C-alpha cells in the first residue's frame, strides 16, 4: 500500500513547529529510510501515518484514505507503528500478551492470530521469552517485543522508529532480515534510523531531514555523496564511504563487498 504526505506541517500545542511542509510519496512495497538530526521531526512526521497526529496543515494519504477521515483504530489495521521508546507501547505482564493484543484487537480469528503471534516471536528471537514479564527483559529485548507486537498485526505498511537502537550485531541482522521479508511480501517499510550503515545496506531510498524539512531524497548512493546536506543534518556517510573518500576515491562504496571489489582498481 502506498502513502503520501502533501504539504504537511505540524505544530505541537506548545508552539514548536516540528514539521514544516513535507511532501513525499512512498510507493507500495518500498524500503524507505528517514535519517537526520535529533529533533528534525522524523518521529512527528511518521506518527501521522496511523493518525496519532493530524496535520496542522496539509494532508496525509494511506492507500486511498485521507487520514483525517479515519480513526486511529481504522488506520492501525493498515499501518503498524513500532514506537521509538518501547515502554510507551508495551503494557502487558507477559510478552505474549503484548504481542497478541494487536491481532486480537483487529478481530482476527483465533487460528490466524495464534499463527501470527508465533511467527512474530520467532522472527524477533523471542520465542523462549513468551511468558516473561517485559520488565524483566533488557531494553533491546523490549524493543524487539514492540516490533513483534506490530509484525503480528500483519499490516500492509510497517513503520519502524529507530529499530536498531541498542541492538547487538545479531539483533541488527535479525531486523535487517525482517525488513527484507516484509518487502518480499509486498509491504511498505518505513524506518527512521541513526545507523547509516544499516540504512545504506537495507533501504532502497533515503530521505534526510533537518529542522522539519526534507533536505535530500534518493537512493543511498545518491544521498550519501551530498556532503553539505549530511553536515547540515548532523549525519555522516556510512563507514566505508567515508574511508573511500579519505583515500581520495572518486566513488563511495556503501558495503563491505563493493568496497573490497573496488580495491584492485585503486592500486597505483
Amino acid at each position, binding site marked *: 500500500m502506498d502513502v503520501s504526505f502533501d504539504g504537511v506541517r505540524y505544530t505541537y500545542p506548545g508552539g514548536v513547529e516540528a514539521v514544516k511542509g513535507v511532501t513525499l510519496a512512498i510507493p507500495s512495497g518500498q524500503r524507505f529510510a528517514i535519517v537526520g538530526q535529533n*529533533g528534525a521531526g522524523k518521529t512527528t512526521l511518521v506518527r501521522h501515518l496511523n493518525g496519532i497526529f493530524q496535520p496542522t496543515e496539509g494532508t496525509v494519504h494511506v492507500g486511498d484514505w485521507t487520514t483525517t477521515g479515519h480513526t486511529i483504530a481504522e488506520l492501525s489495521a493498515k499501518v503498524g507503528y513500532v514506537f521509538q521508546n518501547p515502554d510507551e507501547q508495551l503494557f502487558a505482564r507477559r510478552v505474549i500478551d503484548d504481542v497478541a493484543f494487536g491481532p486480537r484487537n483487529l478481530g482476527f480469528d483465533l487460528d490466524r492470530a495464534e499463527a501470527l503471534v508465533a511467527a512474530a516471536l520467532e522472527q524477533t528471537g523471542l520465542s523462549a521469552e513468551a511468558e516473561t514479564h517485559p520488565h524483566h527483559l533488557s531494553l533491546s529485548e523490549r524493543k524487539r517485543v514492540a516490533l513483534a507486537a506490530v509484525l503480528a498485526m500483519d499490516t500492509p505498511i510497517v513503520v519502524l522508529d*529507530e529499530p536498531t537502537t541498542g541492538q547487538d550485531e545479531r539483533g541488527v541482522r535479525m531486523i535487517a532480515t525482517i525488513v527484507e521479508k516484509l518487502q518480499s511480501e509486498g509491504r511498505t517499510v518505513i524506518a527512521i534510523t541513526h545507523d547509516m550503515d544499516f540504512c545504506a545496506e537495507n533501504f532502497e531510498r533515503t530521505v534526510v531531514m533537518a529542522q522539519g524539512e526534507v533536505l535530500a531524497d534518493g537512493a543511498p548512493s545518491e544521498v550519501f555523496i551530498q556532503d553539505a546536506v549530511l553536515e547540515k543534518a548532523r549525519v555522516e556517510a*556510512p563507514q566505508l564511504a*567515508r574511508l573511500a573518500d579519505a583515500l581520495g576515491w572518486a566513488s563511495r562504496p556503501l558495503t563491505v563487498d563493493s568496497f573490497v571489489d573496488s580495491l584492485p582498481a585503486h*592500486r*597505483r
Partner: protein
Amino acid sequence: MIDLADVSYAYPDTDHYVLSHVNLKVEPGTVTGIVGASGSGKTTLAKIISGFIPHVDGGELSGSVVVDGATIADVTLSEAVSHVGLVIQSPFNQISGAKFTVREELAFGLENLGVAREEMAERVTAVAELLGITGLLERSPYALSGGQQQLVAIASMIIMNTPVLVMDEPTSQLDPGGTRMVFDVMSSLRDAGITLVVFEHKLELLREHADIVHVLAESQLIASGPSRAMLADPRLEKWGIGSTRFTAAAAAARDRKLLSKDAELPVSLTDAVPEFRAFAAKKGA
C-alpha cells in the same frame, strides 16, 4: 578508582546468575569501554558499579565493590551517588518527573545538595552549552525528541561533577553528530580527571576514545586490551559483538590476498586510512 573483586549477581526471584566472578580494576582519569551482546549483563554491571544494585534493585550480590574509596554495599545510596553517577540506558526514565522545564530538571540534583542558587545557574548554563542544548532550557523535559531527552539525561549527570561517571549506552538515540559530540565530551571530562566507564555498541567511537576495552560475555569480563587490538579481535564475533565495517573490509581484503596478513586490522577510519594507503602504493600484482 573502581575495584570489583569476585562479584556475582542474580536478580530477585531468579536463580540465574547474570554475572559470576567478575573482576574489574579501573585507573583514575581514564575512559574504560565495555562491550557485550544484548543480555550479556551490561546494564546490570553498570548498576552494580553505581550502587543501584543492591540499593534499589535488590537481588543477590556477592563480592566487593569499591568506588572512589567507598564500599558501595556499606554506604547509603545517597552517599554512593556522591561518588559515582549513572546515565541510565533509557533516557525516558532518567527524567525526574518533578520539574517543568529542562533548566529546572538540570538543576534538580544540585538543588537536593543545597548548592547556592547562583552557582547552580552557572553550572546549568555551562553544561547546556557543553551538550548543545541551550535552546531547550525553557522547554518541558517531556516535550522533547528521544535524542534531545538523552542529551538532557547525560547533562543531568555531568552537572553533578562526580569523580566517577558510568554511562549505559549513552548515545543510543543520538544522531551521528551528537554521538561524536558526547564522546568528545567524555574525553574532555577524562582530561579533567574524571573516571568514565561507558557501555557501548558503537565500536568506531570506542576505538577513538576508550583507553581500555573490556568484553562482557558468558557472565564474565572475559577479555580486555587496548581499544584497537581488543575491538579487532576475531573472538568478538563469537561473543556476539561483531566488528566495524573497517575491520570487516580489511579482513575480507586479506582473504582475497589484497592486504598482507601482517597488517594489524583497523577498527576506525583513522586506523584504516594508512593500511589501505600502503596497499594503494604497492605495485599491482
